[in-house]
């Protein structure tokens, strides 16, 4: 077993893991942060996306041991300080950007990263950025719409 220490949503977290334990399983099973989802076993769906040192990463593609000493952010750390939804989450709610909600944590984590580097992305840029995220409910139009709205842009031209 390997001892790991990391900062998760601003708080210290530690545990002991097997070499093969994936970061997503450490977050879900050891830290009980089940907001990060496992939607596939082929690293295709992006439901497991978290931030590792400020970069969006599929948490099923790295070992927990490799995330030792990293700064991790998950969906559980995305709400505003007062507990209200952050502006991206709020836009997903306002524009029906989720159906079953299973893919949503990953979508939000990717959108947070995108808007940090590109605060007013075009529709094409958003679609391109979401390339690694699959929505089994296929609600892509409204996901794109939500992210556009979150960035303060007019969404009336985007198909429903």
């Amino acid at each position: 077993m390997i001892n790991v220490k990391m900062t998760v949503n601003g708080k210290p977290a530690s545990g002991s893991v097997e070499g093969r334990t994936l970061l997503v399983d450490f977050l879900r099973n050891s830290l009980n942060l089940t907001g990060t989802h496992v939607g596939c076993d082929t690293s295709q769906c992006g439901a497991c996306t978290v931030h590792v040192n400020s970069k969006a990463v599929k948490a099923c593609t790295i070992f927990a041991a490799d995330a030792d000493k990293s700064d991790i952010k998950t969906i559980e750390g995305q709400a505003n300080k007062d507990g209200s939804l952050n502006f991206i989450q709020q836009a997903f709610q306002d524009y029906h950007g989720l159906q079953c909600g299973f893919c949503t944590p990953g979508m939000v984590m990717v959108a947070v990263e995108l808007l940090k580097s590109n605060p007013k992305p075009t529709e094409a840029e958003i679609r391109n950025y979401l390339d690694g995220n699959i929505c089994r409910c296929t609600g892509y139009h409204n996901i794109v719409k939500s992210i556009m709205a979150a960035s303060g842009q007019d969404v009336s031209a985007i198909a429903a």
Partner: protein
Amino acid sequence: MGLGQYTDDISLTRQTFAAFARSTVANGQIKKIDALRAEKMPSILAIFTGEDFLDVVGNPAGWLINSRDGEPMKEPKRPVLAQGKVRHVGDAFAAVIAETEEQARDAIDALDVEIDKLPAVIDMKSALKPGNALVHDEIETNQCFD
């Protein structure tokens, strides 16, 4: 947030875990699934293959469609675990129940499996050509309805 409760988020005392063995070929004849070594591994509670479900009906289609001439669509059996043949990459042909997810996966890896690869069709047009591989032999065509 992230406080939704999906099935995979539920954690109960003495909960057990399932892992599945899945086909790596698009079409294949199952020759052998030997669980002798897997059965003896720690914390393995049960191992199933398609043979255990011969009496169980398959996964039903939720929505039956008729052809233009009124003929009902062809509904294959779709067994819960593959029986005799695997029909797509990812088709599950064995399941292990164990006390932990890791042990279930280890037992899947320890199965002694032989699957003979058969010719496959991977696009709709060639799927309809007579003489090409059939997904469900008993249906004698790859066309579900017209």
